[in-house]
């Protein structure tokens, strides 16, 4: 720990960094203490095996929480048809049991996508370092946690030592001011940013999101914003904790209680960038000018407003893959499939927003639409609010929680050439199935696509 008071103006990122330095190992390099790790079935087996090969056991067990999400079926959970998926999930349970790490099994109501359950359980707390073998770990930065995705060797390192060698990042401040128009949300903000700076635009930086728009966003919306930070190339996205953060966390199962809560909140209130802190880069977005966004290509920065057209200079490869032409308008494009879910947009607010569009309407003929809640608790809450009934009546499938069509590792997979309106985060080639064509958009926009059978401006459906 640092014994010298930090007097120079500091950013939130630098505060979080300084509070976790175990040892300086070079200029701008340090071993950082890792407070929390989330573990899932896909990136962890080789880490547990590596640990065993070294004859080691986890250095600590309490800071870890494990759940299966990527490979899990989202219907007929009783028997997992795919033997490889069944084995992978069983291996996670066995590894955790042997290591003494808590695992939430498939039939536990708390099971869900790692980045949905961490916050839900109060496992994600401001001021902590959180890692996961998953690139969307920046989601947890919405709470003012220094959270980032790591590979399997790094998981093994955290299990063995509770620290990770890291290089200090540069900082980028993204200021978003103004009021979002009806039909526009956090997904549209982040897609706008990625479109503006590019898929590698923030490589090497930690982004902090600030401004009046961000201050007004719910925790769910802030998580959507931080979640897709990696699609702009940055591993870390941050929002300083405030009253919204504390209200979300109060009473969560793993959040501190009573006197410990009061003391924690006092500490968390200091987690902000100083007014005169200097960032390496500054970007400004005007919230009022943002239209609903749709991706047209195979990289998340290939994105346009719903009123826009595919760029005239779009490359041949994405156009061929997506079966689109340069200068073609995006609105009106017929879709085959709709996916509402993922760690980007599988939370209760997302489902409420989509249900608001689906209510009293019906999925268009020939379109298959599914809603996959981000966790068992999201599912339960949605059912308590009657959202499942709205979706079912409108012809949507109502599934069990998991990553599902965000990554197509289970049996939710598209066929070659199928076009999907998706609330997930990646439109890469093959991401939703070999040859499948993904258009990223918000939950409201995806619901609008479902009920019209076409990529549609949701604002026209807001009566």
């Amino acid at each position, binding site marked *: *720990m640092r014994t010298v008071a930090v007097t120079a103006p500091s950013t939130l990122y630098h505060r979080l960094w300084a509070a976790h330095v*175990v*040892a300086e*190992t*070079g200029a701008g*390099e340090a*071993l950082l203490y890792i*407070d929390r790790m989330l573990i899932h079935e*896909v*990136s962890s087996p*080789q880490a547990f095996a590596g640990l065993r090969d*070294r004859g*080691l056991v986890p250095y600590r067990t*309490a*800071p870890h929480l494990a759940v299966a999400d*990527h490979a899990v079926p989202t219907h007929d959970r009783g028997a997992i048809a*795919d033997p490889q998926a069944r084995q992978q999930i069983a*291996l996670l349970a066995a590894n955790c049991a042997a290591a003494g790490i*808590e695992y939430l099994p498939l039939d536990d109501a708390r099971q869900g996508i790692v980045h949905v359950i961490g916050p839900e*359980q*109060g496992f994600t*707390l401001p001021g*902590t370092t959180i890692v996961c*073998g998953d*690139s969307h770990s920046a989601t947890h930065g919405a709470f003012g946690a220094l959270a980032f*995705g*790591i*590979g*399997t*060797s*790094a998981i093994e*390192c955290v299990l*063995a*030592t*509770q*620290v*990770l*060698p890291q290089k200090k990042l540069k900082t980028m401040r993204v200021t978003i001011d103004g009021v979002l128009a009806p039909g526009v949300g956090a997904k549209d903000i982040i897609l706008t940013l990625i479109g503006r700076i590019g*898929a*590698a635009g923030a*490589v090497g930086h930690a982004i902090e999101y600030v401004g009046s728009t961000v201050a007004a966003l719910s925790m769910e919306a802030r998580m959507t914003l931080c979640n897709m930070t990696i699609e702009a*190339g940055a*591993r870390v996205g941050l929002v300083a904790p405030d009253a919204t953060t504390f209200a979300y966390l109060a009473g*969560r199962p*793993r959040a*501190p209680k009573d006197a*410990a*809560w009061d*003391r*924690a909140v006092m500490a968390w209130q200091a987690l902000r960038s100083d007014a005169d802190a200097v960032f390496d880069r500054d970007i400004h977005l005007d919230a009022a000018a943002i239209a609903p966004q749709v991706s047209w290509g195979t*990289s998340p920065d290939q994105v346009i407003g719903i009123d826009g057209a595919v760029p005239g200079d779009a490359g041949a*490869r994405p156009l061929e893959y997506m079966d689109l032409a340069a200068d073609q308008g995006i609105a009106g494009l017929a879709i085959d499939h709709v996916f509402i879910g993922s760690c980007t947009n599988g939370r209760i607010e997302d489902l409420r927003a989509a249900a608001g569009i689906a209510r009293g309407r019906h999925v268009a003929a020939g379109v298959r639409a599914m809603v996959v809640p981000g966790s068992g608790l999201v599912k339960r809450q949605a059912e308590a609010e009657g959202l499942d009934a709205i979706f079912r009546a409108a012809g949507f499938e109502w599934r069990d929680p998991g990553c599902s069509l965000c*990554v197509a*590792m289970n049996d939710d997979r598209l066929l070659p050439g199928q076009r999907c309106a998706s609330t997930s985060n*990646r439109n*890469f*080639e*093959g991401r939703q199935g*070999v*040859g499948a064509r993904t258009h990223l958009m918000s939950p409201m926009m995806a619901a609008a696509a479902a009920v019209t059978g076409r990529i549609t401006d949701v604002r026209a459906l807001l009566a």
Partner: protein
Amino acid sequence: MMPFDVLTSLAIPLPEDNIDTDIILPARFLLHTEKTGLGRFAFAERRARPGFVIDDPRHAGAAILVAGANFGCGSSREQAAWALLDLGIRCVIAPGFGEIFAGNAISNGLLPLALPVPAWRHVLAEADAGWPLTVSLVTQSVALVDGETIGFDFDAGAREMMINGWDDISMIRARHAEAIAAFERQQRQDAPWLWDRAMHHG
């Protein structure tokens, strides 16, 4: 970890930007729980069409891949690095990398070598022409058959680890155990709620 010091090899040209880890190793192959044998699934979709550059007999045995900007962006899957190594690739030269991929590569003895675009273009032309390159992490240079030598920067700590084949875990356990324990004692005082057992099994 496999040490990396000097490598002389032909290079495969794949000058496309934003080759993400889903392209390098599609997600459906992530159900395998082993590190080995993933090369047969690498670039599965691209290789399904005949004539993909990786399988071009002109580049048989090549251990260097010359790729476009932002190589390895996207998913954190370390399987992407393992699959490349299983194909025999020991070094990827690109104008820039996805950060998580670059870290994963270094952990496995696969050199992610970022070059400025003009130098990268030169290397790419040599790869296209079928000339071998010599990449030395020791002298931090790429030697081309036409006589040119291109110097490069590389993180000092990562360089030492790669040249010696060290890995993080042994180093940390050998050198920093006491610092970790001291940090924990301090954090128990400063943020006791992070150490409350009751919170963990809530």
